[in-house]
């Protein structure tokens, strides 16, 4: 295919660690093959060639934390036929959404001697709070296999096959013994979105929820299990308030826990 026949891909960055877009470069076996089927038209981390668009598929990493970025995402949407968010920052606001619980002026004063030089918003918000999003890929970071699936699905004009059930299913598929049942280790697996392949339990630790809430959370039943396994209110609030702290299900559960 010539360059002009191939669909155009753009990769955009907002407030983030770059890890999710790096996942594209980590597709060592697929990268050159993908580049033959798609024209990677805008990907600043990997290429200085830029293209004003429009783009067939935009992958958006990062959350909106500045007034300039709130405007920039409108532009990204306007030049993108399909817009897919990649990762916990773009999908739920990221770990930087911890500012949503605090006084940002105070936060600035901790890090910067002259906070007035810094132009930032009081909240970190997901992309979907600003523009329509066609698909949200979860994870902190996203899973390489799921990213390839999303790109392949859009090339084929179908919806990505990305299950929204909990990590527990993946533990069963992997044949990992349940760390909670066997060892009493607190684990967010029952309320966390699948996608990582149930990594943490395979390494002997409880899931810490980096893919955000699954499609069927039941916190009123789940929180007592955490408590049974030794967590107190502070522990529970801390574990819910990390990389997907602003995901509505995790946010509600942590607020309810504090209100008790």
């Amino acid at each position: 295919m010539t360059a002009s026949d191939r669909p155009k891909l753009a990769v955009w960055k907002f407030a983030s660690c770059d890890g999710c877009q790096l996942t594209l470069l980590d597709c060592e076996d697929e990268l050159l093959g993908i580049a033959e089927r798609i024209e990677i038209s805008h990907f600043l981390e990997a290429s200085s060639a830029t293209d004003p668009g429009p783009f067939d598929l935009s992958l958006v990493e990062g959350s909106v934390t500045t007034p300039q970025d709130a405007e920039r995402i409108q532009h990204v949407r306007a030049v993108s036929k399909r817009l897919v968010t990649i990762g916990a920052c773009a999908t739920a606001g990221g770990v930087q959404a911890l500012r949503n619980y605090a006084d940002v002026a105070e936060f600035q004063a901790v890090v910067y001697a002259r906070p007035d030089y810094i132009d930032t918003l009081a909240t970190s918000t997901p992309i979907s709070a600003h523009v329509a999003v066609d698909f949200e890929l979860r994870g902190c970071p996203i899973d390489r296999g799921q990213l390839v699936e999303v790109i392949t699905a859009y090339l084929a004009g179908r919806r990505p096959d990305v299950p929204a059930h909990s990590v527990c299913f993946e533990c069963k598929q992997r044949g990992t013994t349940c760390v909670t049942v066997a060892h009493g280790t607190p684990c967010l697996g029952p309320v966390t979105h699948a996608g990582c392949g149930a990594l943490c339990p395979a390494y002997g630790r409880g899931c810490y929820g980096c893919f955000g809430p699954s499609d069927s959370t039941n916190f009123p039943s789940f929180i007592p299990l955490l408590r049974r396994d030794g967590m107190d209110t502070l522990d529970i609030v801390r574990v819910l308030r990390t990389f997907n702290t602003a995901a509505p299900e995790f946010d509600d559960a942590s607020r309810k826990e504090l209100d008790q």
Partner: protein
Amino acid sequence: MTHRGSRVLHVGSLARVEGESALHLLVDGGEVTEARLAIYEPPRFFEAFLRGRSYTEPPDITSRICGICPVAYQLSACRALEDACGVTVDGQLAALRRLLYCGEWIESQTLHVHLLHAPDFLGCAGAVELARTRRADVERGLRLKQAGNAIVELLGGRAIHPVNVRLGGFHRIPSVAELRPLAEKLRRARDDAQETVRWVAGFEFPDAGCDHDLLALAEPGTYAIESGTPAVMPAPTTAGLPAGSDRALPIRTFELHTFGGHVVERQVPHSTALHSRLDGRRHLTGTLARYAISGRWLSPIALQAAQDAGLGDPRQGTVCRNPFRSIVVRAVEVLHALDEAVRIIDAYEPAPRPYVDVPARAGTGHGATEAPRGLLYHRYTLDEDGTVTDAVLVPPTAQNQGAIEEDLRRIVRDRLRAGDPGDAELTALCERAIRNHDPCISCSAHFLDLTVERGESGS
């Protein structure tokens, strides 16, 4: 048309760096009067929201500062927190941490060498374009990167934000049988790494020097990665040598717990990253500094590859101060890291437990490791139940900003003296001067807009 008059150049975002930054240059009559690297990466306030967290959390939380060097954050955090709690992790657990870190070095340095930096020397926009003409070189880079990722994936669970690091060691440690096939893969990757050193050594390098104090960890007997004492080699002009001199100078060291008294951060209006100075002077951390401080401890095949690549023999007091040649030193570091990883696996015996206990206590702890881009320092203060009451993180790129700005000033000045470059050429040169140091701007607090203002006096 002459370019010596007043003009303003704008470059969009700087590509092939990790993050968003802008460049502002003031050029007046052939002289650079001001060079500013402005970082627009939106602030994320890690140091603020770490307050009130449990002392067990910073390794996972701070890894999210950077998707390219998460292991560096995890292990600097562990060292600082273990220091606060009076615990030392040694033996096979320390060796496994070094192995994990070697994996990150291999993947991150290879990413920079093959995908981000090499296109500058070969006149391409990026690796995908490069792959059209030099597919074998790009594929070799991808294989090498995969070898690094394989280490991090086996020990850490995944290449980005690995899940297996904890205070005191690991959640789970591998068996000898799990590591053995990895060693085979790494032995093959070593041949690729040697070929990459030869490949990059053949690039054309502009003459350049760097007149900065060099700061890296030192641990005599080993090429310091995951531990060591801060060591400083003064800038060449302090000894009457030219900026491009390849001669080593005597090194001084200071205790890590005095780091905050030596490396002082200050805020500048044009940046969301904090700038820092070392004992009041401009300094550089990273590949060139490590090679100057620890070069003599490279493995024999890495030392040989460095000499064959024209870097001289660090055991004879040779250093590299040409920032354009940093790509060669990075390639040598990849080779060393592979060799070191194989050595660790060959000597591996599983520790009796995957971690040592780290009971909380009140106190302040310091930790520093060599992230691929340079020295990364963490300091935490804990109360008696292990709650973090204060956190300070000093990433390498924030430290390097002053040195990068000085390189820009020097490189643009030299180019202006040699003739009258057009805007496009000057812009490309500036971008290269920045990429030489592989800045990681997400770490520093992201965007390169180049503005060159040229004064009237030369027209």
